[in-house]
């Protein structure tokens, strides 16, 4: 089975494996990056929470036009992520600089919303915001993996994702507190959001150390196409292929919530609560499942996460009224896959190519999920939502079995 973590050649001599020595498992850098993500997510979710309200009630516009921009944003975001990962690998202070630019770009967008009063302009600002997000994701994850001993990366990513989600849950609360205090003062929400985002950038600059490479000799700077050459690493290639295959059978959140609401006849006013349920489960399970991944192998848990998703699909297909259980499974799926995939990818790539490797796997997965959304939409139109989900669930079961055999034959790590 999995040669989990056994081929590591230069990790510190496993003192942390002993009981009672797990405190140092999450380095300060990870906590600092978690704090940056938490603060930044408070800022961005503040805006997401009030944006529809601002557009409809504040500006008197119809927000439907935003949907059109989404597809473009997804495609661009995936490419920007590759670029961010590549730039992060290119020089001594690479990851931190690129991440700072990404966070900074998004922070600048918040005050710009004060000036944008039409749907296309607001859409443009959101696109720039997403570019910043795409740029910073891979370098940030690279810094997390570089700061953490390979055997603890699952937990480290779990801690980061939990802090990230905490920010996402707090953001709307802050936004509505500001709206209450100002009676529909959307400009105040955007201003406060901008200040919070600036604070996030500052925490990054002050408290996240630049990743120091262990390599003494400066290797030649990699070219962008070398990112694809990373796929020659058998472990990384298998992981990327499996993440993409599973991504092709992962129904997007919006579709799943829509199906849940329709199949179960859920009252429409409860609809906005569904993403909250998933996020809460993700928040609670991210750290324990990340730690479990370190124990039993990230690839195994990544697969197990998709089994949770399959169970969620089965419940929806069976018209089960256990909405809460579906959401817990859905959140569990994210907790078992989101940070865990990053940890697995980090362990399958050399230290000096962490940014590119993480971006490659993440982008492959994101593009696959986007393709799945297009296909699922078409299938829904042709056969109806229930059949479309049944087909996707069957496909997910098949890919899970395929993936099981693919991942079984490869080690969890690369020799560096």
């Amino acid at each position, binding site marked *: 089975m999995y040669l989990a973590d056994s081929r590591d050649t230069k990790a510190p001599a496993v003192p942390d494996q002993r009981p009672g020595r797990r405190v140092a498992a999450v380095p300060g850098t990870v906590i600092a990056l978690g704090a940056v993500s938490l603060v930044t997510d408070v800022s961005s*979710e503040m*805006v*997401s929470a009030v*944006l*529809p*309200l601002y557009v*409809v009630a504040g500006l*008197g*516009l*119809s*927000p*439907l036009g*935003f*949907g059109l*921009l*989404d597809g473009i*944003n997804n495609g661009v975001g995936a490419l920007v992520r590759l670029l961010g990962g590549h730039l992060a690998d290119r020089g001594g202070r690479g990851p931190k600089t690129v991440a700072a630019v990404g966070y900074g770009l998004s922070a600048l967008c918040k005050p710009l919303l004060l000036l944008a009063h*039409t749907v296309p*302009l607001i*859409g443009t600002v*959101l696109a720039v915001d997403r570019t910043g997000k795409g740029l910073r994701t891979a370098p940030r994850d690279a810094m997390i993996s570089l700061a953490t001993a390979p055997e603890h990366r699952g937990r480290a990513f779990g801690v980061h994702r939990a802090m990230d989600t905490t920010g*996402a849950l707090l953001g*709307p*609360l802050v936004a*509505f507190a*500001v*709206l*209450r*205090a*100002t*009676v*529909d*003062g959307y400009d*105040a929400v955007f*201003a*406060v959001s901008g*200040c*919070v985002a*600036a*604070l996030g950038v*500052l925490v990054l600059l*002050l*408290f996240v150390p630049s990743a120091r490479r262990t390599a003494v000799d400066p290797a030649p700077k990699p070219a962008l196409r070398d990112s694809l050459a990373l796929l020659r690493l058998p472990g990384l290639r298998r992981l990327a292929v499996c993440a993409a295959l599973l991504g092709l059978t992962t129904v997007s*959140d*919006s*579709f799943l*919530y*829509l199906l849940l609401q329709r199949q179960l006849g859920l*009252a*429409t*006013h409860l*609809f*906005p609560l569904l*993403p*909250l349920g998933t*996020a809460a489960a993700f928040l609670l399970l991210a750290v324990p499942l990340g730690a479990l991944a370190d124990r039993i192998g990230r690839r195994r848990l990544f697969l197990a996460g998709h089994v949770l998703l399959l169970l969620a699909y089965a419940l929806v297909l069976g018209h089960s009224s256990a909405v809460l259980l579906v959401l817990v499974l859905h959140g569990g799926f994210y907790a078992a896959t989101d940070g865990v995939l990053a940890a697995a990818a980090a362990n399958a790539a050399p230290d000096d190519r962490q940014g590119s490797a993480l971006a490659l796997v993440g982008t492959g997965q994101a593009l696959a999920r986007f393709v799945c959304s297009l296909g699922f*939409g078409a299938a*829904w*139109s042709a056969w*109806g939502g229930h059949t479309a989900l049944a087909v996707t669930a069957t496909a997910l079961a098949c890919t899970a079995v395929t993936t099981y055999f693919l991942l079984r034959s490869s080690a969890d790590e690369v020799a560096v």
Partner: protein
Amino acid sequence: MKNSTRLLVLLLAVVLLGGIGTGAVLYAADRADRRDQEQAGGPAVRSGSVSLRAPGRQLVFRNLAWGPHRDEIATVPAGQLDGERTASGLKCLRFHAASGTGICLQAVHGALDDSYRTVLLDAELHERHVFPAAGIPTRARVSPSGHLAAWTVFVSGDSYAGTDFSTRTAIVDTRTWALDDNLETYAIVKDGHPYQAHDTNIWGVTFADDTRFYATLATGGQTYLVQGDVTGRTLTTLHQNVECPSLSPDGTRIAYKKRAPEASADAPWRLYVLDLRTMTETRTAEQRNIDDQALWADDGTLLYSLPGDFGADLWSTPADGTGAPRQLLTAAVAPAYLG
């Protein structure tokens, strides 16, 4: 940099950014207070009793004029639109009324977030029934008899997507309180064939009678005028590029906003009228961007809102494409005629 220096820099930044944020909140709060004070030269508003069955013809609307009655449902005599407004004390985001039935879409400001509700009112604006609403209210209509009411809200389903909006439209029978809370479950007949898609959005109902209505159907990047049947639960497409239809009192024409091909992408909608017998379109004299469901004042005149100094103003233009638009009422939105 030493740790103590880092903490000092962070502390200074927190104080500075906190100051900016607090300043922005205080400024906005102060502006909110000013909105509660009447403006010189603004329309006169006094509180009084508003009845949907009051004698004489009146215009009822959401009053946007600054002062203590901002956002309240108010009336003004139809023959004297610049006269004193009578404010009801009832606050609504959207409102419509016919034959003694009113519909009011309200925001309920909670501690943690806003929620929305639909209130069906009797002629004295007393609550008859309340339904929770799934999102931000945008359209409301009552059938001519007062028996049916419809409303549309915007829903953003996934907070992580941020930009993924859709609409929900519901119809209720005020005699039985039977509720169709999502018209997307109706069977769609598009160009003569049964049609289903995941991306259908329906909004902007306008009633012909207690069975038939018209609405907007959007799917595959196109918008359609659909005729709906409450009994048969069907939607049938009639025409393309139609949003927010509004049926004339004589039932022969539909006013709507249309994406004009030559208009800029950020202000694409122009006001048109469609003759349902000949299916010919007439463009009205209004040249500006209209993002509203128009209201027929009579069989020849349309009312609609445009952005104004206090949120929105009401304008009117002839329905036959002649004449010129003129401003009817400042600081008002969501109108309906009574009597």
